[in-house]
């Protein structure tokens, strides 16, 4: 498949078209109906959670949040393929993949409510915390790949970045190192067309992002990132390549950020309604749903029945996160060093003395 879709041929790998019709039988991935249906439901869950998170933010119950809306097939496909022993190195728009790895919604909610406990993924193995400084996480993926190779483990790294991130030096250093070291890393670029307001054409003069793989001597492919089946197939093959010691692989997943960059952003400043609508017909969930309905695996009625259950579960986890408990002074000071230095302990004691003083003072003010 990588041979058929060499990035210099300017082709984009697609299996299922916008109507959910299989247009590339030759490359239809091997996937059981059960697995496919589960993947769809997981994507639906992630989308529902994502949209609800935006409304929680609008209600003032959560701080700034970067929506995933429109990009769910990429994280969904990665989520369907990643195994327990595989590593995930996220950016910040891969909710579905994080959930598939065992991160809980409650944890993600905690993070976006502004609590570090939300990056302590209690039951998720091999997932790094969300990475905000753009592309900085990519080099970590290369290092994890080195560990896997060194220890001869059966594991693959799934690393995420956006189109904007491909302009950062760290992106290039990561892919270059990985190419030299031949490590098992799948570099996934979610090309959602914008880095905040900046379109891809302002990020690079390259004709695609996938084509950058050629310069680093690594396998690369451009994939329709809104086509779950194409993403699944591309990731499956990439994982096999990595397992054979022939990695790394670079995947450009072409998609569209239907929402804002974050809840603080206003996309009407830099893009048109017409453009947004032109991507609506390519929506990843609509597309897979049409396919599943045609295959008699799913129906609108089943979806209608499922959604309220999802909403209830999402809200349950949200309320749990909201009731997480007080953020204590001690919490500020912990986890900086293997052993807390004495000076830091003293700073905490000083702060506690201040808190006592303030409490007394405020009480006295109230008496007056």
């Amino acid at each position: 498949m990588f041979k058929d879709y060499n990035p210099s041929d300017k082709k984009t790998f697609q299996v299922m078209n916008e109507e959910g019709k299989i247009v590339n039988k030759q490359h239809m991935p091997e996937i059981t109906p059960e697995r496919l249906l589960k993947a769809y439901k997981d994507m639906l869950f992630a989308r529902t959670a994502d949209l609800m998170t935006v409304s929680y933010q609008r209600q003032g119950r959560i701080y700034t949040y970067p929506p995933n809306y429109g990009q769910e097939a990429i994280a969904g496909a990665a989520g369907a393929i990643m195994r327990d022993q595989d590593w995930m190195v996220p950016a910040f728009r891969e909710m579905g993949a994080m959930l598939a790895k065992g991160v809980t919604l409650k944890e993600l909610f905690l993070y976006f409510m502004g609590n570090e406990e939300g990056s302590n993924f209690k039951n998720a193995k091999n997932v790094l915390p969300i990475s905000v400084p753009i592309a900085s996480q990519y080099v970590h993926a290369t290092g994890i790949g080195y560990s896997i190779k060194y220890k001869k483990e059966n594991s693959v790294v799934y690393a995420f970045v956006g189109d904007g991130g491909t302009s950062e030096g760290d992106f290039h250093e990561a892919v270059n190192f990985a190419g030299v070291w031949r490590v098992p890393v799948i570099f996934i670029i979610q090309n959602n067309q914008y880095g905040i307001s900046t379109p891809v054409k302002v990020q690079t003069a390259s004709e695609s992002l996938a084509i950058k793989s050629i310069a680093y001597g690594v396998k690369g492919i451009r994939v329709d990132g809104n086509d779950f089946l194409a993403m699944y197939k591309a990731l499956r093959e990439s994982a096999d390549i990595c397992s054979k010691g022939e990695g790394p692989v670079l995947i450009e997943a072409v998609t569209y950020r239907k929402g804002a960059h974050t809840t603080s952003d206003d996309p009407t400043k830099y893009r048109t309604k017409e453009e947004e609508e032109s991507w609506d017909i390519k929506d990843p969930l609509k597309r897979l749903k049409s396919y599943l309905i045609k295959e008699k695996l799913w129906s609108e009625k089943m979806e209608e029945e499922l959604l309220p259950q999802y909403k209830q579960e999402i809200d349950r986890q949200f309320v749990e996160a909201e009731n997480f408990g007080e953020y204590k002074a001690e919490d500020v000071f912990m986890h900086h060093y293997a052993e807390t230095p004495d000076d830091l302990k003293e700073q905490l004691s000083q702060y506690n003395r201040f808190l006592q003083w303030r409490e007394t003072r405020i009480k006295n003010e109230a008496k007056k």
Partner: protein
Amino acid sequence: MKIMNMVNALNDALDIKLADDKSVVVYGEDVGVEGGVFRVTEGLQQKYGVERVFDSPLAESGIVGSAVGMAVSGLRPVVEMQFCGFIYPAFNQIISHASRMRNRSRGKYETPIVIRMPYGGGINALEHHSESMESIFGHIPGLKVVVPSTPHDAKGMMISAIESNDTILFMEPKRIYRAIKQEVQEGKYTIPLGKANVLSPGSDVTVVAYGAMVREVQRAMVMAKEQGISVELIDLRSIYPIDKETIAKSVKKTGRVITVTEGPRTYGVASEISQIAVEEAFLHLEAPPARVTGFDTIVPLPKGEYHYMQDPYKILYEIERIVKY
């Protein structure tokens, strides 16, 4: 006179300099079409065109490094680091080139660059959006680091910064970007960089602050006054060069000094000011110089940030302690 907040005032300063000096260019991430995530550069691309005000690719090292190239070849770039936490890829270009070029070339080349950067906490932001790391920049030989605390100062200081032939890190306290409005003089005026400003004279204790902390001190001063404590407030305005003279003069008068900063304590700006007090006013001191600073911890995410941030009570606590010392 026109009522402006700091965003308007900075925009006005950029507008004035773009109009009067063709060598000024403004760029960075999202500064063109969108006008910056905080809208400081709003409308400037429409007015001056995409050759002079533009969006760059997303790469801070590229932004500052290309500014060094532009500066040595006759332009005056004003570049934006979108948030304080994202400047670090550019650190190499700042510390290895922008701040050293004049010295290395023995004056043949200079780098008139303004690096604008919103900084500081208190706005419930995401990770890496709330730090206040002026000390590590103040520590770089060859770099100037300035911080306005009012719209009036922001405008005058920005014009001075663009006209300066040095590289200047212009730190913008984003917490008060829109929180303070005041009358700002229209047209061009400058405020010299490196000069502190005595905002209110007092006799019992000198408090030195800058950026968003000035407002917190002013709130603490109201409570201190109720107890009959007279505070002299100095707005430092420039982290480097540092205005020793103004600090020394004030400490000689009051005999006490407290510095209020948002950043971590150890090796910070407050330590520097304490040292200046000791060196310049040792025999006048009635109490050891004191610090109200962030902890030596990572800035907590919003749920815990209030522990870390300076507030009027933290400042008052220290004022009372030092006055009673």
